[in-house]
């Protein structure tokens, strides 16, 4: 897409800021509905947390989960690109305490009508032979699962282009033109782009962009880390985790897992392009240890990469998908660090809000910004979500 091409109109009906999975899915949904949509990305699509996560699709706490589950099995066909979605998830516990903790999800699962089966060590070995004799017990969910974030995110991007949507990479947002309480144009490093509506889905940048429009969307960015091993033979079930880890066996056979200590970071500079990838830390070794604890037959496998991603969290860890107060054509969308798996549904929800004004399939009242109206000004300090002082660790 060449936004400087003289034949291209310098604007779109809906401008989406942020080429991560949330923004791309929203753009795809809108383009499918015939809306003239343009996604602006400061760097490359899905080069933030959207391309650095574990690929989990099992977030039944969310009002979007049912729609997510409806969509995932169809996503390959809908996007015209393989997402590698695999259904089902096994959580392995290594002791009684973990078993009890994982069991606390059962009432939620039952209420939603999903099956959740308690497994013994022998049943676990059958689904996950790499577990060997380590498993104390576990839970199998015949729902949720995992997909490949890279292929899925790129699938959204290509599919939205197929439907006439446009993507501008390397395009930093520097400001907004606001008239009469409405955003009329988005100012970027590549010129001004007029719009009827704007969706801010810019991950860690979302708060700073909303602030440019005078609105407060409370959030803090953190770094989290993952590792991946060389391939192992495919297990009958690839959605296997537990022991304080999230992750999966990829369809190539690699074990890709994350978990453990996150690090709260300072606010990003407004419009800052993502760095080639934040550094990862020796936390890698501890993730490796925990992976070996649940999959001891993988102990010989070699870690071949580790990486980090930066994700934002709202004070309660729940998403915000809402119109900005005082700017009634600007929608803000942050999934609060749990965005990939829900993205087929979050895009649908954003499409509904933008076109119809209301979500057709879920109650999004818990995503309202107004829930933070009574939030303390010093909430970051109260929650300890502040960066470490350099060198004080």
């Amino acid at each position, binding site marked *: 897409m*060449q936004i400087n091409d003289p034949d291209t109109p310098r604007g779109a009906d809906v401008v989406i800021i942020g080429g991560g999975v949330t923004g791309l899915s929203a753009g795809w949904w809108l383009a499918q509905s015939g809306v003239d949509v343009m996604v602006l990305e400061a760097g*490359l699509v899905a080069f933030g947390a959207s391309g650095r996560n574990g690929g*989990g699709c*099992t977030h*039944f*706490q969310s009002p979007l989960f049912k729609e997510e589950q409806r969509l995932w099995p169809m996503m*390959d066909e809908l996007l*015209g*690109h*393989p997402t590698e979605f695999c259904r089902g998830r096994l959580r392995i516990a290594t002791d009684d305490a973990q078993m009890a*903790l994982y069991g606390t999800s059962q009432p939620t699962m039952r209420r939603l009508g999903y099956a959740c089966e308690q497994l013994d060590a022998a049943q676990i070995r059958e689904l996950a032979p790499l577990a060997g004799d380590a498993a104390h017990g576990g839970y199998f969910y015949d729902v949720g699962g995992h997909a490949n974030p*890279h*292929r899925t995110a*790129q699938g959204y991007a*290509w599919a939205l*282009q197929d439907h006439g949507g446009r993507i501008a990479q*390397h395009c930093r947002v520097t400001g907004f033109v606001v008239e009469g309480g409405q955003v009329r144009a988005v100012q970027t490093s590549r010129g001004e782009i007029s719009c009827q509506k704007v969706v801010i889905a810019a991950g860690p940048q979302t708060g700073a962009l909303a602030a440019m429009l005078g609105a407060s969307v409370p959030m803090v960015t953190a770094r989290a880390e993952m590792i991946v091993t*060389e391939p192992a033979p495919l297990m009958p079930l690839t959605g296997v985790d537990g022991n*304080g*880890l*999230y992750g999966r066996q990829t369809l190539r056979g690699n074990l890709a897992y994350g*978990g*453990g*200590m*996150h*690090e*709260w970071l*300072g606010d990003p500079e407004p419009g800052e392009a993502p760095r*080639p*990838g*934040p*550094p*990862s*830390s*020796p936390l*890698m*070794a*501890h993730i490796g*240890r925990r992976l*070996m604890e649940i999959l001891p037959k*993988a*102990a010989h496998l*070699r*870690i071949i990469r*580790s990486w980090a991603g930066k994700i934002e*969290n709202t*004070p*309660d*860890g*729940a998403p915000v998908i809402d119109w900005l107060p005082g700017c009634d054509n600007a929608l803000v969308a942050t999934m609060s660090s749990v965005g990939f798996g829900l993205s087929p549904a979050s895009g649908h929800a954003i499409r509904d809000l933008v076109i119809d004004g209301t979500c057709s399939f879920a109650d999004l009242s818990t995503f309202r910004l107004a*829930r933070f109206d009574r*939030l303390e000004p010093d909430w970051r*300090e*109260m*929650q*300890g*979500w502040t960066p470490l002082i350099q*060198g*004080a*660790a």
Partner: protein
Amino acid sequence: MKDEKSVASARLTLAERAELLVIGAGPAGLSAAITAAEAGMQVVLVDENPVPFEVMGDDVPLHFGQGASGVARNSAAMLEAIIESEPLIERAFEAGVDLRLGVAAWGLYANGPEMRWLPGAVAGLTDGAQGWMLGADHVIVASGRRDMGLAFPGWERPGVMGATAAVTLARRYQALAPRRVVLIGTGAEALLAARELMACGVEIAAIVEQASAPVGPPALAAEVASLLSSTGGEMLCGHVPRGVAGGEAVTGLTAAPVAGGAVREIACDGVILGVGVTPVVDLLGAMGCDLAFQAERGGYAPLLGPSGRTSVASVHAVGDCAGIWPKKSADRAIAEAEGARAAAAILTETGRAAPSLPEPELPGPPALDLSAYRTAWMRAAVIDAPCGAHVCQCEEVTAREILELRPPRYLGWAPPEGTNDERSLARLLGEGPPNPDQVKRLTRAGMGPCQGRRCREQVAALLALQSGETLAQIPLAGYRAPVRPLPLAIAAQIPEVEEMRAHWEVWFGIPSQWRPWWEHPGHYTSAGRERGAQVNSE
């Protein structure tokens, strides 16, 4: 208030500390270690060589191409060979350097704007059996060079290897299996490798070059041509390798004229790839040092201040990993001077008496257009090859699959009827250069256990060719720790402190994040938030 689930609870267990850690015991690293130790610093010098035979089989750290002889199975003999081949090692011992051969640095970390929990600079080390962390006040990286691969048909066969790997096996270990080889490439480093190999008694049957004449320094080219003809070898310019003959072992190479015409079969038992060498910047890149394409330094190399200081204050880079150019390749005194100067700068910084040393000489303007030369090789030997070889051997990805961004073959993917199948790089680009990491994610090229050592420069050259950019415009595919494949069982030996174990969470450990949505209160305050309970993060 402290978030106990955050790195505020994290503490890294260091097994040991060093005032100065030097990584790499080549001329630059040894010279740095000796200079610092002689001035009274406590210096640990690690070098992964000799790597175990099985690890060499995975082309770590160099593209050995199964070209090592049985000698390489004897680790004691290999260790002895290193000590005997390098006079500075004896001096390092005498100077009190804590020198450890067979110890690999798989990670290097330092605090920065996006990471603050570390106790200063730390390195992850392993001897193949144990893994541990070492904290260092200062680090000098001297991690050397490696060879660029070239995916001509047959390049995955045992006996096809990199020039640096071949010279290392021949010169240092007397463990090079092939005795009569064909060398591919005529840049300065290839010609120097030819001279070295011949000096070690290896017969060079031919040197194959796609360009119409050798591209290295003319005097060196003339010298090598004359050596070559005196031993019955030939310089075959305007040719590219098209295939390898033989079963288990290489018995010959097929070379074809670039312009078309009769092919040549050259009898040989090894093929040596000398189309390019590159600074080994994996540790530097993974820790976040600023790197940039610098043609005069042989490609992507660290951006250096005086005395080899990198953008990370406590880290210096010296020797080949800081830049490779013909004069430096021919004269190890330059690398030694870089090492000594970096050590002297650290001595001065720490208030010790330092020897007065001049700044080492810098590279001049590059004599060879690196981008044009490497892309010409990729076009002639890989893209124009009648059958596509795997550019990424680990993941079995061909040049065509890379350029067309095909999903991996094992997915068995065929686009559904009616979908627009124009899912090309051009459509991905927008207005920026193609990014090898983006290509890696979609095709898996460079994602395998060799960690891109064999294909990284080739993928960059392919993207440059496709986009009409120069190599300088193609971003560097990111390096990630561990920069050597590290078994889970070895990583697991690094102790996880009790504070971390007690507060380890799947995700952030925010209770309300995992409450089902119908249990959320209408308003949220930090004072009223749920606390204390263990969180079932999903």
